[in-house]
C-alpha cells in the first residue's frame, strides 16, 4: 500500500519536477549554510568551512541527481524520451512509417479477426451446463473406424434403459412444419425439430418463458405442445409473452405453446424455429424400429465416468440388438461417441485452422518486411550510431531506442489492426455459410489481450534483429571508414537478403496452398451434376394432413399445379420431385431383389430414395438411358409399383444382366415390402458436389402415396431465358390453390449449387487474398533491398562505368543480386510447400497436393514479381552518371 502511494507520488513527480527541484535547491542551500556556520564556529575559515561542507554533502550536483531520481521514475522517463525520439524519427520519414504501420495493421487485424472466430467457435465451451460431460452418440460399424451413423429410435430407448455411465440421454431429429397464419398472415414453412422431453433439462437450458417439456408431453397421443425458439417468438409473435398458453396451428393442427427458449440457444442450428415432443410427433413404427436411423442422440456422462467406458457399455447393449435383429433389417453393430463440442464445430475446424495458419504466415511476412526496412534504416544511421557509441551510449540504450521505434510502429499498427479486426470479424461471420455458433462470435477482452500480445511480440521480433545487428561489435568501424569506402556494409546487406529469402519462402508456401485450394474450388464448381443447372427454378412445399390425408387429394393438387405451371408463358418444362441433384442426401431405403439369390444374413443393400412425376426428368435434363420414365398411367395407388433407377444402381445391383422388368422389394413401410418393377434407367446425378455417385431409385410421385408424395419440390425450366421472373406467378398460383400452403427454397439450381460451394469458395478466396498480399509484401521487400544496395554502390557503379563497363553488364549485375535471394527463397518455399500441403490434403477436392500446374504457376508468378521488383533499381543503376557518382559524398 505504502509502496503504491510512493509510486503514485513518483509518477506525479515526473510531471512537476520543476517546482520540486527549486524547493530542493533551497533546502540544500539552507543545509550548506548551517553546515558552514558550524564550521566557522569551530574555527575554520569561511572558505575551508564551505569546502568541508561540500565534501560531507558528497557534491552538490550528485545530491541533486540522487534527489531527482527519487523524485520521479527514471526508467519511465527514459522510456518517454525514447518514445519521443522514436516519434520524431518516424515523423521525419512519414512514407516509411505509414507503409509499415499499414503492413503491420493488416497482419495484426487479420490475426485478431481469425482468432476471434477461432476462439468463439472452437475454444470457448458450449453455453450449456457442464459442457464437458455432454457427448454425442452414434451408431458405429466396427469395420469402418470413421463411421458415425444417426440412431434408430428403437436402439435409443434400449440404450436409455440399459446405460450405466450416463446420467441422461436425449434424442432429437429434424423436422419441419407448415405454420399457418393466425389473422391473414402468410403461412410459413418453418424448420423444426422433435426432441425427447429431457433434452433441454439435460443441456441445462431453461425456457425464458413458460416451461420445458415434461414426460406427459412426450407420449404418443398426448395433447399437442410446442416450444418456440426466441427468433420465431420475436419475429412472428412480436415477442408477446401472452403467446405462452395460447395455441398455434402447425400442419393444420392445434398446438399449445408451453415455453420460449432463450435467444442464445441455437442448437443444433440457428434455423430451427420450434421444438415438439419426440414421441408425440414421431410415428409409432419409427419409435419401435431398429432399422430407421434418423435420431441424433446426446447424453450426459455421470461425474467421474470416462466417455470411453460409458460408450463401451452402450456399445455392448447395441451389439446384443445387432445379434437379435440384424437378420431382419439393417442394425448397427456398435456405438461410438465424441464430445458434443466436436460435433458442433466438426466441419469448420479444418478450414479455420488453415486460415489461421495463412494469417499467421502473413503476419510473419509483415514482421520480416518491417525488420528488413528497419535494417535499412539502421544502415543509413550507421554514422550516427557510431558517434553516439563513441560518446558513451551503452549498447542496451541504443537497442532500446531501436526497439522502441519498431514497437511504436507495431502499436500504431495494432491499434488500426484491432479496428480492422472488429470489422473483419463481422464480415467473416456473415459471409461464412453454416458457421456454427456464429451468433456467439464477437471480440472480447481476451481477443484484445491477444491483439496486444501479438503486437508486442511483432514489435520485439521485428525490432530485435535490426537493433542487435546495428549496434554490435565493429560499430565504431563506421567512423574509420573513409568517406569513399565502397560496399562497406556488405554484412548488413546479407542480413537483409537472409530476411528476404525467408519472406519469399513463406510467400511461396502461401501461394502454393492458395493455388491448390483455388484449383480444388474450381474443380468442385465445374463438377457435372448430371443434369441441367441453368434456367431451372425450384420451390419446396409439403402437403400435410389432415387436408391432404387421402391419396386422391395429393394427386389432385400435384396434377393441378403441374397443369397450371406448364400453361404459364415461358415455361419449357415442369416437374415434381422430392430433392433435386446437389441438394443433399436426404434419405435412403433398404432394398432386396426377388430374382437374385438371397443375401447372406446381416448384409443389407440400400439406394438413395427420390420421387418424380412423368415430366421431371425432361424438365431437369436428366437423360433417359434405357426403358422409359413414368407415364400419366402411373397415377394413384393402384398402378404405382414402378420405379426408375440410375445407371449406378444398374451397375452395382444388376452388373451382368438387364435390369428392365426386374423387381425390387422396398421395405420401408412393411416387411417384406412391396415389389416394384424397374421400368427405366436414367443418367447418374450427384446428390452432393463433392460426393461420389450412389445407387438411386425414383418412385412415382403421382401415386399419391402419403409416405412418398407429400414432400415435393417443383422444378421449372425455361429455355434460354431467365427463369426467376416466373417465381412470383407460380407462388401466386399456389396461394390460389391453397392459401394455407407455405412455399420455401425458392431458388435457382445455380443458387443451390452455389450454396454448397460457398464455403470452399470463401476460404479459397481468402487464402488467395492473403497469398496475394504476401506476394506484394515480398515484392516491396525485394524492391527495397535492391534500391538500397544500388544507392550504396553508386560510387562503385560509377567507377565501373568510368572504366568502361557496359550498361547491360551492370543490369545483369544488379538483377542477379536481387534474384539470388528470390531463387533461394523459391527453392526453400517449394520444399516447405511439399510438407505444408499434406496438411490441407483432406480439404482438397480432386486436386493432388503436388499438382504440377499450381506449382509451375506459383514459380512463374513469383519470378515475374521478383523480376518486376528488381527491374526499377537495376535500370536506375544503369542510369548512374559516373561524374556525379564519383563526386558524391
Amino acid at each position, binding site marked *: 500500500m505504502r509502496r503504491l502511494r510512493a509510486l503514485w507520488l513518483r509518477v506525479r513527480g515526473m510531471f512537476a519536477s520543476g517546482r520540486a527541484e527549486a524547493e530542493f535547491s533551497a533546502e540544500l542551500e*539552507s543545509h550548506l549554510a548551517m553546515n558552514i*556556520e558550524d564550521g566557522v564556529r569551530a574555527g575554520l575559515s569561511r572558505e575551508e568551512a564551505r569546502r568541508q561542507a561540500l565534501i560531507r554533502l*558528497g557534491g552538490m550536483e550528485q545530491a541533486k541527481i540522487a*534527489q531527482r531520481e*527519487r523524485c520521479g521514475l527514471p526508467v519511465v522517463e527514459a522510456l518517454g524520451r525514447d518514445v519521443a525520439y522514436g516519434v520524431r524519427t518516424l515523423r521525419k520519414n512519414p512514407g516509411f512509417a505509414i507503409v509499415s504501420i499499414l503492413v503491420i495493421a493488416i497482419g495484426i487485424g487479420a490475426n485478431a479477426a481469425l482468432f476471434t472466430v477461432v476462439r468463439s467457435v472452437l475454444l470457448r465451451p458450449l453455453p450449456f451446463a457442464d459442457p464437458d460431460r455432454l457427448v454425442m452418440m452414434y451408431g458405429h460399424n466396427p469395420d469402418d473406424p470413421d463411421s458415425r451413423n444417426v440412431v434408430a429410435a428403437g436402439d435409443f430407448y434400449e440404450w436409455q434403459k440399459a446405460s450405466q455411465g450416463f446420467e441422461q440421454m436425449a434424442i432429437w431429429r429434424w423436422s419441419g412444419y407448415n405454420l399457418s397464419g393466425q389473422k391473414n398472415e402468410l403461412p410459413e414453412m418453418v424448420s423444426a425439430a422433435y426432441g425427447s422431453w429431457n433434452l433441454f433439462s439435460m443441456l441445462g437450458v431453461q425456457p425464458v418463458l413458460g416451461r420445458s417439456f415434461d414426460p406427459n408431453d412426450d407420449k404418443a397421443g398426448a395433447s399437442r405442445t410446442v416450444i418456440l425458439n426466441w427468433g420465431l417468438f420475436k419475429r412472428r409473435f412480436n415477442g408477446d409473452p401472452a403467446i405462452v398458453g395460447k395455441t398455434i396451428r402447425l400442419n393444420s393442427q392445434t398446438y399449445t405453446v408451453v415455453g420460449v427458449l432463450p435467444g442464445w440457444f441455437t442448437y443444433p442450428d440457428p434455423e430451427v424455429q420450434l421444438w415438439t415432443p419426440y414421441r408425440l410427433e414421431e410415428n409409432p413404427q419409427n419409435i419401435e424400429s431398429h432399422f430407421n436411423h434418423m435420431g441424433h442422440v446426446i447424453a450426459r456422462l455421470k461425474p467421474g465416468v470416462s466417455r470411453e467406458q460409458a460408450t463401451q457399455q452402450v456399445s455392448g447393449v447395441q451389439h446384443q440388438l445387432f445379434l437379435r435383429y440384424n437378420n431382419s433389417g439393417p442394425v448397427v453393430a456398435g456405438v461410438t461417441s465424441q464430445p458434443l463440442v466436436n460435433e458442433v464445430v466438426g466441419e469448420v475446424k479444418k478450414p479455420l485452422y488453415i486460415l489461421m495458419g495463412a494469417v499467421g504466415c502473413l503476419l510473419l511476412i509483415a514482421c520480416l518486411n518491417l525488420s528488413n526496412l528497419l535494417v535499412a534504416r539502421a544502415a543509413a544511421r550507421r554514422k550516427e550510431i557510431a558517434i553516439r557509441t563513441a560518446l558513451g551510449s551503452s549498447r542496451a540504450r541504443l537497442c532500446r531506442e531501436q526497439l522502441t521505434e519498431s514497437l511504436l510502429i507495431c502499436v500504431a499498427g495494432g491499434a488500426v489492426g484491432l479496428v480492422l479486426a472488429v470489422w473483419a470479424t463481422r464480415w467473416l461471420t456473415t459471409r461464412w455459410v453454416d458457421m456454427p455458433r456464429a451468433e456467439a462470435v464477437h471480440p472480447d477482452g481476451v481477443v484484445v489481450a491477444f491483439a496486444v500480445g501479438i503486437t508486442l511480440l511483432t514489435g520485439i521480433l521485428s525490432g530485435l534483429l535490426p537493433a542487435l545487428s546495428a549496434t554490435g561489435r565493429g560499430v565504431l568501424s563506421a567512423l574509420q571508414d573513409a568517406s569513399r569506402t565502397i560496399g562497406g556494409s556488405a554484412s548488413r546487406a546479407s542480413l537483409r537478403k537472409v530476411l528476404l529469402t525467408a519472406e519469399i519462402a513463406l510467400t511461396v508456401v502461401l501461394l502454393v496452398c492458395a493455388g491448390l485450394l483455388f484449383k480444388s474450388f474450381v474443380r468442385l464448381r465445374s463438377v457435372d451434376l448430371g443434369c441441367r443447372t441453368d434456367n431451372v427454378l425450384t420451390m419446396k412445399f409439403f402437403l400435410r394432413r389432415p387436408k391432404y390425408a387421402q391419396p386422391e387429394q395429393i394427386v389432385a393438387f400435384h396434377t393441378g399445379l403441374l397443369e397450371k405451371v406448364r400453361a404459364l408463358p415461358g415455361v419449357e418444362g415442369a416437374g415434381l420431385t422430392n430433392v433435386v441433384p446437389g441438394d443433399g442426401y436426404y434419405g435412403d431405403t433398404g432394398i432386396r431383389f426377388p430374382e437374385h439369390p438371397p443375401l447372406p444374413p446381416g448384409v443389407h443393400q440400400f439406394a438413395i430414395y427420390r420421387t418424380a412425376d412423368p415430366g421431371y426428368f425432361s424438365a431437369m435434363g436428366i437423360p433417359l438411358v434405357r426403358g422409359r420414365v413414368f407415364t400419366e398411367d402411373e397415377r394413384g395407388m393402384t398402378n404405382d409399383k414402378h420405379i426408375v433407377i440410375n445407371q449406378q444402381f444398374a451397375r452395382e445391383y444388376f452388373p451382368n444382366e438387364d435390369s428392365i422388368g426386374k423387381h425390387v422389394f422396398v421395405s420401408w413401410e412393411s416387411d417384406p415390402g412391396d415389389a416394384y418393377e424397374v421400368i427405366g434407367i436414367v443418367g447418374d446425378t450427384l446428390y452432393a458436389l463433392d460426393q461420389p455417385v450412389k445407387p438411386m431409385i425414383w418412385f412415382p410421385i403421382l401415386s399419391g402415396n402419403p409416405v412418398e408424395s407429400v414432400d415435393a419440390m417443383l422444378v421449372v425450366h425455361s429455355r434460354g431465358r431467365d427463369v426467376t421472373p416466373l417465381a412470383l406467378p407460380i407462388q401466386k398460383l399456389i396461394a390460389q390453390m391453397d392459401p394455407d400452403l407455405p412455399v420455401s427454397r425458392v431458388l435457382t439450381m445455380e443458387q443451390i449449387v452455389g450454396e454448397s460451394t460457398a464455403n470452399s469458395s470463401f476460404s479459397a478466396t481468402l487464402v488467395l487474398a492473403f497469398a496475394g498480399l504476401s506476394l506484394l509484401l515480398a515484392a516491396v521487400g525485394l524492391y527495397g533491398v535492391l534500391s538500397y544496395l544500388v544507392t550504396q554502390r553508386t560510387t562503385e557503379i560509377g567507377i565501373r562505368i568510368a572504366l568502361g563497363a557496359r550498361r547491360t553488364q551492370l543490369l545483369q549485375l544488379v538483377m542477379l543480386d536481387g534474384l539470388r535471394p528470390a531463387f533461394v527463397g523459391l527453392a526453400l518455399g517449394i520444399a516447405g510447400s511439399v510438407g505444408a500441403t499434406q496438411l490441407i490434403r483432406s480439404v482438397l477436392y480432386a486436386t493432388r497436393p503436388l499438382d504440377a500446374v499450381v506449382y509451375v504457376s506459383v514459380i512463374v508468378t513469383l519470378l515475374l514479381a521478383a523480376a518486376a521488383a528488381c527491374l526499377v533499381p537495376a535500370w536506375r543503376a544503369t542510369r548512374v552518371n559516373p561524374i556525379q557518382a564519383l563526386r558524391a559524398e
Partner: protein
Amino acid sequence: MGNKADVWQGTLALMVLKTLETMGSLHGYGIARRIEQTSGDLLSLNYGTLYPALLKLEQEGYITSSWGASENNRRAKYYELTRAGKKQVKKEAADWEQTTAILARFLAPAEEA
C-alpha cells in the same frame, strides 16, 4: 574519517525515524548531525544520501515536511513523524531488535569457543 563505519544499507531509514521520534521536528542538517552524535561519531554519513532517504519516507507517508525558521533564524525544511511513521518506528525497531538478537546468538557461542 578513515575509521568510521559507513551507514549500512536499509538502516538509515530507521535511524531517521528514531531520531525524529526523539527530537520531534527537525531539519535535514539537524537529522544528519544528530545521527552522527548518537552514534558517538562512529558513523560517517554522506549528507547527500540523506535527502533521497527523507524523500522516500515522505513519499511513503511516514514523515511530513514543512518550511520553518531554524535556531539561527534561517529558513529550513522541517521533518516530523506522521501517525503511520510512529507506528513504523515501533515495528522496525522491533524487527531490528529481533534480527540483532538472532545474530547475537550466532556470535555468542563463537566467542565462547
